[in-house]
């Protein structure tokens, strides 16, 4: 089973979800721990569509990826195509964009600009921290189903 956590840029929500899945951080993690994640706020718009292999969970690859505004479209297309191709690919696409809040959105936007990078990163991390329980619930649901 391949776990595919996806959000807009793959820089915040899906990155944290993958870290939660792998136990790199706990649901009780502080903002500093989120900021300390290797791939937090790293992926850029040009990286969209390119998954990052965060690690393995019981031998299953756990990835995160940015799919732009295609968070609803991506799983539909992946399901359709694998079905038509009869490709035996076991995967779970998890839409993390449903856990976005205003601080993460604003922080993610600001962090793209040179002078606001530090502020944006911190704001995005704070936003993610506020919704960490929600993201963890999503991870648990993906693991169980």
């Amino acid at each position, binding site marked *: 089973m391949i776990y595919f956590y996806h959000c807009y840029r793959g820089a915040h929500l899906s990155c944290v979800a993958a870290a939660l899945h792998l136990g790199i951080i706990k649901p009780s993690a502080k903002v500093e721990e989120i900021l300390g994640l290797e791939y937090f706020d790293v992926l850029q718009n040009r990286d969209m569509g390119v998954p990052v*292999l965060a690690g393995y969970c019981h031998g299953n*690859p756990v990835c995160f990826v940015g799919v732009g505004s*295609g968070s609803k*479209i*991506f799983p539909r297309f992946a399901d359709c195509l694998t079905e038509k191709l009869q490709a035996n690919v076991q995967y779970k696409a998890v839409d993390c964009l449903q856990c976005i809040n205003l601080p993460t959105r604003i922080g993610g936007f600001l962090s793209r600009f040179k002078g606001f990078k530090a502020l944006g990163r911190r704001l995005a991390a704070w936003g993610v921290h506020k919704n960490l329980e929600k993201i963890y619930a999503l991870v648990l649901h993906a693991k169980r189903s």
Partner: protein
Amino acid sequence: MIGLPFFDSQDAADHGFLQYMGKSNDGSLVFSVGFETASTPVIKAVKNLLALGKAGAVNVTYVETREVINILMIIGGILSRLLGLTFLGRPLVAWGTQLAYKKIVALVEATERKIKLREQRGQ
């Protein structure tokens, strides 16, 4: 053009689902699919997913048709699909498509040539 199956019929909820259009002369299956503005990341992500899942040799040609879109098609599409003003939007989309028709034909011909060349190299 308006009488074509699926022409100006998709809603946001249909995007991402493959629509079977038929078979080409060489026996390939032809599908159409809507991606809104996310075609590049979605296609890239799915290609990577198939590679990661070791789906084997998958013979799929992805053809981006957004490059032939003109302003009439955009306005017509918004009016018809987004605002529900089909009576106004559909003729506009049809007109825009008619204007872009040569470009669409050229795109299809270029794709056919590309597939043929790839098959020849593969043999």
